[in-house]
């Protein structure tokens, strides 16, 4: 235990505390992990499981890129290609990005707000096991007949007699299980943040990562029940003779698209908002400067969450909709650019006149700013529906949403990993390997996806298993494939970095970054009860206050 930490504890404001007199040591070995209700262990379970699924999703991505590297390739059959594209999209959305944020949220929300656990620890464990069950049910389909209707599973392709096998049912059960997991998790996060903040932590002192998770939780609670109900209707259409989505007996194929995207668009923000939160934590710490416009950033998260429920039909601009509807969804979609733009400007203003320490988390945050801005801008272009009709369902859209979800969400994940790994393990990740990983990911990402905008503009639809040589798409596709392997190399270096640093990394101490929030007040890794003493919070940067107080008091002690 460091000197700073002991002094900090000795000098923290005294007030009544609940002291745990007897803490049962957690059971040893894997039983301990299975039986755990500790938010930190559940967080680590989420993260390791999600990174394992990320490997699977990444291999699926590389299979597709290899298939498309040259025209008329026969590596994958059309059937296998459709299965791989469905597995890739579904995996990355439901089994990777959402649970990774659930993992970080589990681990860091209680620590950031000065709580000893989540509000409902056993419910929290249930959320994790439901998620794992969803992943297993889904991947079990690999041994039977994997789904092949895309991660959107549009009807009637997914409900009619068009695809043999029951893969779509595995997809439906995945939505049910992981959806329930996310709903319970969102409830838990909301209740925890609302009720378990440390003394003095009013809403205007809540860390911005927690604000982003609160906004995310509201979106989850509003939209995931909708998709759960929708896929239930799909299930009854498939097996019990109902007719919600089948036009042949009076249903509506378009209804499914409306319901799906009412969930599907907020889902994008469900995946990206926690990344916004991470960026808002990382930038002030490494610029040594308070966040610029705390209230604007917190409010814009809420604004984005609200607007995200009003924009779904911009995914359907090519379907038969009236001009009034098209215009409404164009304007509402454009409006989201305002709170998002405000965030980006506030982040850059946070760097201005700072004293920037160029560590790996800051690299990923800066990369996020560049690439996410580009993805946001192409998003505004897609909101203009005459333009959208030219580029939707092409590689332009594929590029756009990978800029948002890989350069955005996954860069946020990488920044969070490099930032919080020392807290979770007590060891630092290698800076050198981290920066190599960053540059490989940055360059690989641009090579993979920037060129795909052009492919889309020149007419290459998404979700095709091959293309003819006379289309002229061969060179761009080859560049994209090479980029994908560079990107994969970058991710693998980070994973090796994690495995190596777990045992060999230098000790981190409680607060290696001189950070602002309460998770850095406790040892790394934190003890099961998180904090011996929970300090009183007097600003949005409680740890900075404590450091300053210690510094001033030791100075006066020295002179006295």
């Amino acid at each position, binding site marked *: 235990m460091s000197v700073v930490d002991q002094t900090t504890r000795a000098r923290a404001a005294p007030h009544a505390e609940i002291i745990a007199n007897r803490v049962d040591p957690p059971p040893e070995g894997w039983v301990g992990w299975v039986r755990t209700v500790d938010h930190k262990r559940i967080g680590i379970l989420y993260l390791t499981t999600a990174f394992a699924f990320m490997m699977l999703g990444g291999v699926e991505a590389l299979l597709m890129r290899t298939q498309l590297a040259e025209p008329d390739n026969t590596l994958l059959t*059309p*059937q296998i290609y*459709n299965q791989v594209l469905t597995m890739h999209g579904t995996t990355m959305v439901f089994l990777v990005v959402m649970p990774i944020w659930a993992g970080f949220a589990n681990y860091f929300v209680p620590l950031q707000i000065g709580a000893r656990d989540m509000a409902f620890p056993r419910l929290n464990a249930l959320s994790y096991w439901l998620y794992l069950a969803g992943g297993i049910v889904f991947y079990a389909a690999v041994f039977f007949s994997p789904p092949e*209707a895309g991660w959107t599973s*549009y009807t*009637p*392709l997914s409900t*009619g007699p*068009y*695809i043999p096998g029951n893969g779509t049912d595995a997809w439906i059960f995945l939505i049910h299980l992981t959806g329930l997991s996310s709903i319970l998790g969102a409830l838990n996060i909301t209740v925890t943040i609302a009720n378990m903040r440390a003394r003095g932590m009013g809403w205007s002192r809540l860390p911005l990562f927690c604000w982003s998770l609160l906004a995310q939780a509201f979106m989850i609670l509003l939209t995931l029940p909708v998709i759960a109900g929708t896929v239930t209707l799909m299930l009854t259409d498939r097996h019990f003779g109902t007719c919600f989505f089948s*036009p042949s007996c009076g249903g509506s*194929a*378009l209804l499914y698209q409306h319901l799906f995207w009412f969930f599907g668009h907020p889902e994008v923000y469900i995946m990206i908002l926690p990344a916004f939160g991470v960026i808002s934590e990382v930038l002030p710490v490494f*610029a040594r*400067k308070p*966040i*610029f416009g*705390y*209230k*604007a950033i917190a409010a814009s998260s809420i604004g984005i969450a609200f607007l995200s429920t009003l924009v779904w039909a911009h995914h359907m601009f*090519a*379907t*038969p909709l009236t*001009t009034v509807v098209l*215009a409404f969804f*164009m304007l509402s979609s*454009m409006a989201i650019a*305002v709170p998002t*733009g*405000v965030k*980006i400007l*506030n982040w*850059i*203003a946070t*760097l201005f*006149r*700072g*004293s920037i*320490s*160029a560590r790996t988390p800051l690299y990923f945050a800066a990369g996020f*700013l560049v690439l996410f801005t*580009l993805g946001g*801008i192409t998003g505004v*272009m897609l909101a*203009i529906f*005459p*333009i959208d*009709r*030219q580029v939707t*369902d092409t590689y332009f859209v594929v590029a756009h949403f990978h800029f948002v979800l890989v350069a955005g969400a996954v860069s946020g994940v990488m920044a969070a990993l490099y930032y919080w790994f020392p807290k979770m393990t007590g060891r630092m990740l290698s800076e050198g390997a981290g920066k190599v990983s960053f540059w490989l990911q940055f360059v690989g990402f641009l090579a993979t996806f920037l060129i795909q905008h*052009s492919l889309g*503009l*020149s*007419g290459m*639809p*998404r*979700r*095709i*298993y*091959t293309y003819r040589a006379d289309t002229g798409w061969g060179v761009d596709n080859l560049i994209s494939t090479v980029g994908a392997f560079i990107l994969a190399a970058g991710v693998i270096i980070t994973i090796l970095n994690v495995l190596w640093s777990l045992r060999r990394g230098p000790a981190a101490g409680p607060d290696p970054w001189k950070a602002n929030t309460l998770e850095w007040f406790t040892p790394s890794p934190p003890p099961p009860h998180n904090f011996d003493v929970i300090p009183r919070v007097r600003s949005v940067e409680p740890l900075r206050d404590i450091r300053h107080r210690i510094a001033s008091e030791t100075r006066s002690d020295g002179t006295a």
Partner: protein
Amino acid sequence: MAIVAGCTVLLFTEMTAEKAWAGALLPERGGSSNADRVASLYAVVLVLAALVFFGVVVALVYALRRYGERRSPVAAQIRGNHRLEIGWTAAASGLIVVLAVVSLTKLHTIDHPDPAAASPAAIHAGVVPAGAGQPLHIDVVGRQYIWKYRYPGGAYSYEEMVAPVGVTVELDITSRDVAHSWWIPKLGGKFDAIPGYVNHTWFRLERPGVYRGQCAELCGRNHADMLAQVRGVSPAEYVAWLAKQKQSIQTADAEALTPPVPAGSR
């Protein structure tokens, strides 16, 4: 600043002048006026987007270089600036309003079929009656994995649509099984073919030629092989082709309906 402005003007003139950019920086164009208008709207939006993007990147790179810990050892403790924040929120909103207005003003000529009368040759050939607002209607029906086109008078064809130049052609698009999406990039945007619904779009060819595209909505295993093309021909050739197509359909139907003659009876 002057350099950025200069580059922007240069880029803009390049893009609007050069067809070579189509398919790399701009959507495809050159088949029908609606596709051309989408491409020019896209060019305007792209220039604005590029300005915003490079503005953000320049500010970011400047901040990272200028305020690194070596050159800037002490961080200013600034928590925000209300006037600045209100200012850029208003600026962002203003930019969005400009984009919306530009898009909405261009909308009418992209969405609404060109009402101009057909070319004299088309009227002479009897493709459509004389006068403004007289389009030729062709039905487009998607099914796994082929497009069928139904022309006035009962003729139909598969995969390749034959259309006369100088005539506004309106398409009524639907599907017989799963969702498909009709798309010929040079003739305008995508319009989904959804069973139970009829979708509408239009084009007007000015030059003969073959315009290629393919289904743009995942429709099953052979989605990638569901090709489409429009062959633009002169009105006279169109009328002749239509007659010949109708004739061969009738012949084929008659053959199919006639009971086969037993081999030994002749």
